[in-house]
């Protein structure tokens, strides 16, 4: 039986820190939703196996605000996480042998502080510390597998840099960071590297970007 991987991204919202520090009292917030539906998964052999169709639907608020001359407060609040599995129905008898399962709850909140380090040759530098709060449920649902969080406390320290540049007459931006995530509860610590470049079109109504986020467990 061949099944295809079904991925449905309605809207992506990643916790990405900028290195341009906002002035005190200014900032922004954005509401984000994304959904993932999958009927295959990668195994420990690097191959794909079929599984019962599982879905994840996350709604979140992300915000940054200046709270000092060079300090921003950053928050990522996944306030509604739905983890669910489709009902399992026999193709031969039509009988439901596994009913639909669902668990709704909070996800893991991230709270961070970003400090502006300054500018060097048009490159802006900042440093960020982010705390991953285990506000979600790491064991949830009928069999414990409908988790909305990983149950561990993360501490991610990173150095960010970025700059604006032009190609022709068009303005672009580039930003990147290197980070170390200290994890608890026996999870592997991680080395993070991240790069993103993009530009705005149609009077800043449309943002086009590409990004690469590489995480290496240590």
């Amino acid at each position: 039986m061949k099944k295809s991987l079904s991925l449905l991204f309605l809207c992506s919202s990643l916790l990405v820190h900028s290195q341009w520090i906002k002035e005190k009292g200014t900032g922004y917030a954005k509401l984000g939703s994304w959904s993932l539906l999958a009927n295959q998964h990668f195994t420990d052999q690097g191959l794909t196996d079929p599984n019962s169709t599982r879905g994840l639907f996350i709604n979140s608020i992300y915000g940054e605000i200046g709270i000092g001359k060079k300090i921003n407060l950053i928050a990522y609040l996944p306030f509604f996480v739905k983890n669910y599995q489709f009902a399992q129905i026999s193709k031969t008898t039509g009988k439901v042998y596994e009913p639909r399962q669902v668990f709704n709850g909070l996800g893991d909140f991230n709270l961070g502080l970003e400090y502006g380090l300054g500018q060097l040759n048009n490159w802006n530098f900042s440093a960020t510390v982010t705390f991953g709060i285990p506000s979600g449920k790491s064991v949830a649902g009928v069999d414990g597998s409908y988790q909305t969080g990983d149950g561990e406390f993360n501490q991610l320290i990173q150095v960010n840099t970025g700059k604006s540049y032009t190609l022709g007459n068009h303005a672009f931006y580039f930003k990147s960071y290197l980070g170390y995530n200290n994890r608890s509860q026996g999870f592997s610590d991680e080395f993070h590297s991240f790069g993103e470049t993009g530009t705005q079109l149609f009077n800043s109504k449309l943002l086009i970007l590409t990004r690469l986020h590489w995480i290496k467990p240590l």
Partner: protein
Amino acid sequence: MTSFSGKVVSKSSYRLEGGFTLARESDGLVLYLDEDYRASTALPGLYIYLSNNANTTAGAYEIGAVTFFNGAHSYTLPNSIELMDYKYILYWCKPFNVKVGEAKIYD
């Protein structure tokens, strides 16, 4: 007939292999896994069942969560289960309802 023997084989890309013997002992039915038994530890919830349908755990008898992943071990089954009550041993990832492997007890 007091026992059946065979091989556990993977039906997924997770490692699962090894010989088995299902035997009637004086104190009940016992499922023995041989020294060559190996199972992946990567699954979040590997369970072992006895079933008459190799494709579902519906109606199957759940022996329990797999806690041995390497080498010989055994499961003592309730006296209510007879040697020929079930045709298959199933290994199943319970949380994600994924078949991992099977062994045919008898035809």
